[in-house]
């Protein structure tokens, strides 16, 4: 057995596999299929200061090797999370992270402060990249100045590990990553979904109620991989890679491109046991190539 432990700032993970926010519920939904404590980290649903109903149905469109979603951050708000959900999941023997979203800097800060008080949540993932909400969300993640302002405000209020989730819907993602690093983030994760749309030609109507939505799944992997590679070269903080990871080979590719950990999203819908299989598959890869630790392959892409 190779050593699969990896670090994101102060956060120590038993293996580099985490679940992507919005695709794994609160973890409990999957516990009939797998022992969720074997996953390196569980990132729960996007959480906002107040209850949000999300967008109207239809919110999903299947696409070749992927899907579009327009859920729009439906959640019952941070207070509900703290009162009703946290007590049920806090003793899971792995890292539980909360994905924090908002419409204003003040919302982000207030939500992060409330989560900071929870002993069993060692880190947050700040979502400045949701393409499915009208105000805030992705707007914060698409310019260096706004990304910097929200991250530095949250940094002041939140002392534990702060991961900032980046949007791929930008011209130069490395620049945004550098701004976020300068503002005090401990890590960046990427990518969130890519803006896309689907049309029903028979009905001459968009498929999604919001017309546009966020693309995820196998089809986004080459874009995600390229962005992770660019960002990992640019910043010094650890990078968490995600986007289209469907199996262990995909995960190893992200590690080689420079990710210190990876997240699995849409693939959970097709195989609810995929997280465990990927963790085991990374171990098999390391053993097959004679590496003692996963840290031996992070960023070890040979381009010369």
């Amino acid at each position, binding site marked *: 057995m190779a050593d699969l432990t990896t670090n994101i700032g102060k956060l120590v993970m038993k293996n580099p596999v985490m679940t992507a926010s919005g695709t794994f*519920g609160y973890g409990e939904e999957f516990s009939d*299929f797998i022992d969720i404590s074997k996953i390196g980290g569980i990132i729960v649903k996007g959480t906002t200061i107040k209850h949000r109903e999300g967008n109207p*149905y239809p919110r999903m469109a*299947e696409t070749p090797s992927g899907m579009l979603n327009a859920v729009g951050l439906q959640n019952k708000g941070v207070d509900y999370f703290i009162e009703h959900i946290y007590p049920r999941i806090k003793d899971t023997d792995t890292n539980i992270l909360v994905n924090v979203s908002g419409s204003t800097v003040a919302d982000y800060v207030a939500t992060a402060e409330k989560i900071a008080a929870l002993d069993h949540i060692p880190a947050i993932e700040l979502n400045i990249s949701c393409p499915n909400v009208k105000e805030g969300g992705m707007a914060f993640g698409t310019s260096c100045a706004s990304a910097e302002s929200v991250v530095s405000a949250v940094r002041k209020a939140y002392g534990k590990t702060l991961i900032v989730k980046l949007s791929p819907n930008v011209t130069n993602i490395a620049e945004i990553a550098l701004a976020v690093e300068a503002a005090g983030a401990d890590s960046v994760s990427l990518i969130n979904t890519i803006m896309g749309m689907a049309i029903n030609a028979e009905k001459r109507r968009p498929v999604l109620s919001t017309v546009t939505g966020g693309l995820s*799944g196998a089809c986004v992997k080459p874009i995600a991989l390229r962005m992770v590679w660019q960002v990992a070269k640019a910043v010094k903080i650890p990078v968490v890679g995600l986007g289209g990871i469907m199996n262990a080979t995909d995960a190893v590719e992200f590690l080689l491109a420079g990710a210190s950990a990876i997240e699995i999203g849409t693939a959970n819908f097709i*195989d609810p046991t995929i997280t465990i299989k990927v963790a085991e598959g990374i171990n098999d890869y390391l053993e097959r190539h004679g590496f003692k630790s996963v840290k031996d392959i992070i960023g070890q892409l040979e381009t010369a």
Partner: protein
Amino acid sequence: MRKYLLDLTVSSNEKLSGNYILMKLTSEEKLPEMLPGQFAEVRVDGSPSTFLRRPISIHYVDRNTNELWFLIQLVGDGTRKLADLKKGDLLNVMLPLGNSFSMPTTEQKELLLVGGGVGTAPMLMLGSVLKNLGFEPTFLLGARSKKDLLQLDKFEAYGNVFVTTEDATYGEKGFVTNHSILKQKKFDKIYTCGPTPMMKAVAAYASKNGIECEVSLENTMACGIGACLCCVTDTKEGHKCVCSDGPVFNIKDLKWQI
């Protein structure tokens, strides 16, 4: 209820009239407990355009032969690939998913089960369970045409069957809500599954006549287990997941304009 991820073996895959198949699946282990109204998420292999699993209702569970039945309408590449499966092939399923139809109260004696098109699928399982509990359910099945009427002999084993076809090739002409049985008999509870306009018409009939009514919704899904929130329907308590809070809803909880 515990959910399972299983590789089931196809024991038969029969082409029915029209564009439908009846697939029977078995396992060396005893099949898990499943309730009427629940569904499975089926993985489709070998179809480049089919990325997500496909939700399919539990049509019937034959405990004597340890077989699970699916009744499937071939509408796109995913369902067409399922039609290609042969005896002995494996099919990966997540099941049982969702809630179930609720059993009648002691005052509810006359039960009407309304199915439209392939929405008749869950009604066979429901009819068999109700019959086992001592009820004599009435089935009202609607279809475009005679060739779209499926499994009539199976339904007849569990209760009286009434039929409408839109082109008058079988039973009474028209939609289910036009059938004369609705004028002849007073029902205490209605269960329905089928195209949304049909379910809304049935729900309108039920609510006008003060009859309790449960509908089974078929929203498009991604995860099937309440994790992604893609499949929501609008209820009086806000958005609820059709896959985990449903697929069965009491019409009094929905925000349908009926």
